[in-house]
């Protein structure tokens, strides 16, 4: 049996038709993960034993003729920022190198109820802070398309896990682009949901007014299937509204006839790699051929988004990471010191890497007396302008399309000593994050060097179904070519 071109839907059918068993799937993907991990450093922890146990359970249910859900027995990979009961969860940080959570994140609990088979926990930038998965104590994840290049970040391991075909879907988190950008760099589908659409309970917080969690998948239909099982209100995360979750497959094949697609000029300016602009515009042309109407629009506050984000996010991050003191959980420092204060300094000094320290310091600075108004409050106001831009555009267009990242993946080590340059790689994903909007990365071509290029489809809040429909329509155009 060749598992190479499997998708969730095909694997589910194969399981029901008894072409293969869940245990066979779990073994196949676990072996592949083990083998490729040596080359690409995708996983922090491999969980073959648990995967097999869960797979056998679903096999038992299938053999008894029980109805099983579409995700039952499907191999997946989980970013090591999600709490998984009884399984090491490091956040790629020295601080949590020995942390074994006593409970599951809500998203994990929901997927376990569906018969999740977890191949392993994937690499990331420490505490999800970074755009390349180079800020991990476990070393960088390499891009499966070309190992000299980064896989993107912060959910680089989850994107690479899928690109290397070591699972059939994976989970990541997206605060300023951490699902969309690695999905773009690795050539897979990745969805950042509307703020609050999926519960974040049990996922380590980064910046609480931006954080979202979402799926990576091989195509938009699979992406819809995973989202379906995770979305909705959760009493453990009060930012999840009690809002009906639509059936994400219901209209996914309806096409884009008559749909208005906004093309923001700021997403195609001189800062964007020419190959990237061209690939994305070619994709837009395909959608136009499929019946969509193209509207030129403008999001003038785009140029402020990186500055706004790198003020507000570190402020929130510095507050969230204040809880890591090496006392209730985390690692004990080598030198404990004489007083509690010494202990805090040493635990945090040893436990956090440089990028985390930089961000905590920026956050502490912009929130400190004398600087609060000039930085934090000002940024909060400019954030409102970014939101207003989108509101204006959505009066003229149903969705917005632009590139996900200004350029294809960069080389490992290229930006590591220049944090600002690394931050600017998020310039096109941050605006939607500032406004809490859903945005979908769909692969739309390759550069001359063979590196994947992704287009980003952005919609109004809670229009994940619409984005998936547009993405699906593009995939269908590609298949008929």
């Amino acid at each position, binding site marked *: 049996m060749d598992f190479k071109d499997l998708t969730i839907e095909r694997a589910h059918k194969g399981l029901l038709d008894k072409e293969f068993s869940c245990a066979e799937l779990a073994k196949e993907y676990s072996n592949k993960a083990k083998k490729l991990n040596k080359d690409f450093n995708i996983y922090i922890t491999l969980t073959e034993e648990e995967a097999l146990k869960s797979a056998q359970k679903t096999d038992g249910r299938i053999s008894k003729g029980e109805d099983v859900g579409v995700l039952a027995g499907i191999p997946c990979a989980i970013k090591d920022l999600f709490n998984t009961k009884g399984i090491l969860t490091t956040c790629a940080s020295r601080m949590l190198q020995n942390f074994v959570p006593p409970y599951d994140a809500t998203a994990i609990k929901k997927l376990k109820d569906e018969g999740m088979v977890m191949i392993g926990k994937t690499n990331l930038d420490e505490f999800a802070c970074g755009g390349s998965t180079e800020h991990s104590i476990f070393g960088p994840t390499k891009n499966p398309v070309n190992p000299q290049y980064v896989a993107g970040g912060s959910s680089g391991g989850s994107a690479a896990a899928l690109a290397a075909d070591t699972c059939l879907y994976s989970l990541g988190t997206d605060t300023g682009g951490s699902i969309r950008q690695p999905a773009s760099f690795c050539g897979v589908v990745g969805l950042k949901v509307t703020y609050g659409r999926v519960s974040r309970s049990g996922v380590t917080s980064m910046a609480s007014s931006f954080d979202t969690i979402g799926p990576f998948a091989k195509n938009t239909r699979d992406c819809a299937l995973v989202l379906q099982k995770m979305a909705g209100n959760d*009493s453990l995360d*009060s930012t999840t509204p009690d809002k009906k979750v639509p059936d994400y497959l219901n209209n996914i094949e309806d096409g884009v006839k008559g749909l208005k697609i906004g093309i923001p000029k700021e997403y195609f300016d001189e800062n964007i790699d020419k190959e990237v602009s061209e690939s994305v515009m070619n994709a837009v042309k395909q959608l136009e051929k499929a019946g969509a109407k193209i509207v030129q629009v403008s999001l003038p506050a785009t140029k402020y988004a990186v500055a706004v984000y790198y*003020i507000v996010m570190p402020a929130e991050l510095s507050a969230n990471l204040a809880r890591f003191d090496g006392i*209730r959980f*985390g690692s004990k420092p080598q030198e404990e010191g004489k*007083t509690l204060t010494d*202990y805090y300094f040493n635990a945090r*000094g040893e436990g956090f890497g440089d990028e985390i320290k930089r961000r905590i*310091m920026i956050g502490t600075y912009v929130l400190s007396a004398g600087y609060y108004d000039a930085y934090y409050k000002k940024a909060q106001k400019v954030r409102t302008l970014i939101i207003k831009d989108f509101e204006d555009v959505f009066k003229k267009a149903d969705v917005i399309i632009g590139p996900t990242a200004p350029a294809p993946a960069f080389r490992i080590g290229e930006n590591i000593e220049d944090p600002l340059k690394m931050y600017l790689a998020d310039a096109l994903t941050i605006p939607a994050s500032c406004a809490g909007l859903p945005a979908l990365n769909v692969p739309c071509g390759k550069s001359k060097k063979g590196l994947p290029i992704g287009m980003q489809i952005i919609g109004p809040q809670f229009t994940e179904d619409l984005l998936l429909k547009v993405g699906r329509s593009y995939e269908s155009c590609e298949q008929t070519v």
Partner: protein
Amino acid sequence: MIDEKQVKHIAKLARLELKDGKVSKFSGQLNDILDYMALLEKVDVKKVEETSQVTGLKNVSQEDRIITKCDGDTLLLCSPLPKERKQIRVKPAITM
């Protein structure tokens, strides 16, 4: 402009021990980043409200009842420090 003295002060506020060589490195990097933020100085926001949350939820409340995800002993196991009578023993906060 953040000089090395200020970097040390911020690190102190944030309870971060910085190794000697790092102070000057961070000072340079933080200055680059904050210089970039100066972009916002010229933006006119006189009549603009601040955004602190994006989906418009207000006063989310729920019944006040205890939900136990795991018991105290299990949670105590997460701590790397010694435990006594269901408490974590830490270094003294005040020394004489």
